[in-house]
């Protein structure tokens, strides 16, 4: 008799354990998709060199231009990274350089070189969700957001432009400037094709779109993208001009010394 009861209890317990496992498996698979997506989007190659053309377009259609070379070096896949940015335009900031040491789990280290007064300053900024050089992209949009900052769930699957996508919903664990993000992630190459950001008033306010994907050195790469703020009407269009992977940048470039005078070969 007693044995029977125990057996039933065990059975119930194991059922519920299996249940939670099933749930967490679902969550894990969503997290996996995001991880894969981050790797495909921000970590291709051991390093990358790209000439970026950024157009900041306001509600009235007026443009501001940002043109820069961005160099990226991975420490490990999905882990720390270093970024070096050299500005060509706007004209009055030419020679300005910017360096980010990115750590997924804590605040980045950032340095800025201001040529007019020949000064390098370290910058301690708010958060990774602030605007990148005045554009609609945030620092996180440029270098990736820690997978652990949100809880992810797979909501459905659907086609975008003829490509099969996972649709994931990400909710920030701590209060962030967005309250919900929905991503359309390509099942094949794991690149995000579209993202929708909802603000704390529950309104859709930012929409990301990968406008063109090209395979470069074997890596599917988003070469044209747009981030549009639907509330303000402001948008930013980005074109990756000459993308190169595995160029052998080396660690020494990412130093204060080179911020002031970067080697010519890296900024052409």
């Amino acid at each position, binding site marked *: 008799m007693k044995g029977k009861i125990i057996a039933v209890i065990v059975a119930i317990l194991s059922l519920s354990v299996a249940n939670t496992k099933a749930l967490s498996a679902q969550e894990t698979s969503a997290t996996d998709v995001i991880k894969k997506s981050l790797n495909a989007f921000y970590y291709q190659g051991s390093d990358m060199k790209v000439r970026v053309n950024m157009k900041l377009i306001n509600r009235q259609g007026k443009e501001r231009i940002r043109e820069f070379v961005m160099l990226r070096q991975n420490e490990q896949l999905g882990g720390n990274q270093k970024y070096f940015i050299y500005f060509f335009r706007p004209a009055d900031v030419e020679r300005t350089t910017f360096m980010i040491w990115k750590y997924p789990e804590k605040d980045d280290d950032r340095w800025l070189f201001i040529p007019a007064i020949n000064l390098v300053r370290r910058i301690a900024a708010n958060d990774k969700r602030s605007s*990148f050089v005045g554009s609609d992209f945030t620092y996180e949009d440029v270098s990736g957001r820690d997978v652990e900052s949100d809880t992810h769930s797979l909501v459905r699957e659907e086609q975008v432009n003829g490509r099969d996508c996972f649709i994931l919903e990400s909710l920030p664990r701590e209060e962030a400037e967005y309250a919900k993000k929905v991503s359309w992630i390509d099942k094949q190459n794991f690149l995000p094709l579209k993202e929708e950001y909802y603000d704390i008033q529950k309104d859709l306010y930012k929409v990301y779109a990968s406008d063109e994907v090209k395979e470069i050195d074997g890596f599917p790469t988003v070469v044209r993208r747009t981030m549009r703020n639907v509330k303000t009407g402001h948008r930013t269009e980005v074109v990756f001009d000459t993308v190169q992977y595995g160029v052998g940048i080396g660690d020494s470039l990412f130093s204060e010394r080179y911020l002031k005078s970067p080697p010519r070969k890296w900024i052409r």
Partner: protein
Amino acid sequence: MLRRLTYFSIDRPKLTIVISLLVTIIFMSQFPKIRIDTDPENMLETHQRDRAFYDGVKGEFGIHDLIVLGITDENGIFSPSTLEKIQRIVSQIVKIKGVIIEDLISFTTTDNVKADGDFLQIKRIMGKVPDTQREIDRLKRDIYENPLFVEKIISKDGKGVAIYVPVQKKDMSYRISKEIEKIVEGKLDGTQRYYLAGLPVAEDTFGHEMFKQMGLTAPLTGLVIFLLMFLLFRKLTLVISPMFVAMFSVVWGMGLLIGLGFTVHIMSSMIPVFLMPIAVLDSVHILSEFYDRYPSVRDRRKTLMAVTDQLFTPMLYTSITSAVGFASLTLAPIPPVRVFGVFVAFGIMAAWLLTITLVPASIMLIREEKLERSLVQKRREGSFLDKILSPMGRFSFFGRRTVVLAAALTLALGIWGVSRIVINDNPVKWFKEGSKIRVADTVMNRLFGGTYMAYLVAKGEKEEAIKRPDVMEYIDHLQSYLEEDDLVGKTSSVADIVKRINYVLHGEDKAFDRVPKSREEIGQYLFLFLSSGDPNDLDNFVDNDYKDANIWVQMKRGENRDMERIALKVREYIRENPPPEGVRLQWSGLTYINKVWQDLMVGGMLKAVLGSFAVVLVLMIILFRSFGMGFISMIPLTFAIVLSYGIVGFIGKDYDMPIAVCSSLSLGLAIDFAIHFLQRFKRKYGETGDLERTNDYIFGEPARAIARNGLVIIIGFLPLTLSTLTPYVTVGAFFASLMIFSTLSTLFLLPALMGIVGGRLLKGGRR
């Protein structure tokens, strides 16, 4: 002829009532389509120069209207619990729909740029609530050390913080302010208070209050008028019809306005209040005449016919003149004023039509024996009015020279008063003193740099003009000059940002608290700010091409006069210190816009009044077929208007929007008595050919009608003075004073004048 309408109504009273009821229902059916517009900006045409520029400025710099929330604590706000409350309040405010999240200015949403050893720190002023004394001291130091914050988000004494809440559209201000109230109210304790200020809240709240007032004061006014008429005429069924005339004409006027797709603006919301006295006016003349004649005729039909015969022409003319007075408002360059004028004019003619039909029809429905009982049997001989009126008439007639002399002196006094009139307005003052909004206005402007926003825009000819050091420096100096004035609490611009970055990059060295000398430096500092802060912070100050810069001028008072003075001051500064080449300055902002429409309104109203004065004069000449009579008929209204505005000048009441609107009414209302007086004087003189006898006759029934009317309107509109909104108070008080002067000048001055020149004029006028 038009008189047939009255005869028809006497013959077919029930049909008349049914028809007017049906027409009223048709107009009423338009009411659900009502669209409300409480934005004083719409006082200007959309393409008006300053408004178009302001719209451009708002677009170019991404500027939104601001609600300013102040939170004060007598013990100072720098305690963990209070700071925590502020944080919680802000985090809930950003969740309100319609709040522009990224432009909200507060401790927890705005960045502070400061030096920290080797670091350039760009972080929220208060990233997390401090809990040790050391952290609190540090926060305090950070805030007070940054000139951009002092008196903008923190008061000098540390007892108040301000939170600037930008809203998508101004007409959301009232709703959002209510939601903010709900968030804040439960959270504060004994020593803490909150205040909501800023023009958008005042203007939008006014719109909401206005409708409450319309629903409250208009019926109350109606009730008082009704009671007064009952006291005068003692028969309920007799005095009920004027109330319907008033109500129906309001419904007709408003119904047509709404039906034609016009918005109900602050101005048009006053239509009911304006229509009521005019609608009642003619009815009281009929009732008065009927009431006095009935006892001798004792037949309602015959009495009505006689009354119509007596009153038809003067009533038609008084209505036309009043309508013309309002129609003349279409000359004003202010759209809501034009709409107001047209529909009041329509309402007046509707009231006339209803008076000559509905009032006789309703009298026809009262049974003869009832009329007999209340009008004949209950009547007391030698009423109160007669005891005053007839000596009055004799005094004026025989003491005519004294009366005219006294009148001339009074008029001179009035003109002196008029010359002292100060033209000034401020939408916040449309609320009574002691009201929440007025209190918030006082407190907030004492603690902070000012809740009245104006923008001084530096417009460059070429792109990047603002990055020029000479331009940047000019802006900086202009700001210092502005801030010397007590009225200007705070100014902010792109120059402040550049100076701040310069200072911080150079290790917070005071020597670098200035505009840098080179263009590159300026360009790169701005880029630095843009790259690490919130780009919107900069957008509010410079346009996309760095062609134009926007200097925010926060003022502690928002009266037109104050704005005018500051604008003059800046003009003077520009004359002495011309701006760098290729740059010019132009004012904008809500406070400035209010000044612009006020200027237009004063000029427009003056033109309208003068215009209608001329038209009414011509009408009077036609009516009396005499130039002299025409001129004399204009005298009482000239008196009434000059003296009423003279009082405005003497008591120091600002000539504001409501006062300006009253001027349009004054003409039509004030001429009414003169027309009745002179028209009947002329007629009687034609019969008798004797001035004294004519005068005695006039101070019988006709003067009683005038006095009754005067009483009804003077007292009837006093309830308006109880309103919580000053424009209604003003209108009520102004009507009363206008009617007092109009009654007095008609009853004193006209008999005196007719005594002097009447014989000559009327002989010439008689055929």
